[in-house]
């Protein structure tokens, strides 16, 4: 157990510009490597984080991302929380549909990110902002 103490503490990154989205990717990559995810799983979780951090910026008007190494006793993993105080999502089912977009993108960010991780939790309501928690476990 090297650097376990550092890993157990959440690392935060504010998201206010598209350079910050790049920083989120780098932070997630570092922690994913430290908890020994496979190369494919690292790639999946970094890609999911990139999609969700961009949503935080574009739809949420900016916010914060927290990355933490987790352990459920059997497996190690990485958990990431994306929080914004933007307009929230009115119709969550619709927002999670492939191809649905209000921002002129491909409509794959939210639905695609959910497919790339093991656990996906979203708390949102109109006017209440959005908080998404994702987890990827090592195999």
């Amino acid at each position, binding site marked *: 157990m090297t650097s376990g103490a550092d890993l157990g503490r959440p690392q935060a990154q504010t998201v206010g510009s*598209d*350079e910050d*989205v*790049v920083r989120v*990717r*780098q932070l997630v*990559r570092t922690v994913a490597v430290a908890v020994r995810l496979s*190369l*494919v799983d*690292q*790639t*999946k979780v*970094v*890609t999911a984080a*990139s*999609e969700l951090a*961009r949503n935080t910026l574009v739809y949420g008007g900016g916010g914060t991302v927290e990355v933490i190494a987790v352990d459920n006793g059997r497996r190690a993993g990485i958990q990431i929380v994306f929080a914004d105080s933007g307009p929230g999502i009115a119709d969550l089912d619709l927002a999670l549909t*492939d191809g649905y977009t209000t921002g002129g*993108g*491909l409509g*794959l*960010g939210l*639905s*695609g*990110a959910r*497919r*790339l991780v093991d656990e996906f939790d979203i708390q949102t309501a109109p006017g209440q902002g959005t908080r998404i928690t994702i987890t990827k476990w090592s195999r």
Partner: protein
Amino acid sequence: MERVPILKIGEILLVSIQVDMSDQTAVALQEDLAERIVATGCHGVIIDITALDIVDSFVGRMLSTIASISRVLDAETVVVGMRPAVAITLVELGLSLNGIRTALNVERGMELIAIDRADYDHDETGDDPIPEPTASP
């Protein structure tokens, strides 16, 4: 903002993406490349993504857009060097990279463009043969 360099090698433009691109950098590349295609008259564009450790929906869309813009400007685009983990992730994300041609490496990408161009030149002369001069009466 960083800019991705565009190299001209013979009749081909080579873009080797070596940085973790911000969205702005990706959009700038789209515009720079369109200008270079017109300025050089090149008929082939190779985008080398060997160094990219992820391709998310934004970069995926940029690659599709570049391929479409190039086609309108009479140039073929080939994306080369995609890592296996990136390919797996892209498919699971739901990105099909419609309209994008791919090759495993730069060399094969260049071959693909050369073959394309040879076919194209052949078609041009084959479909529209120069008429034999006819003897005037």
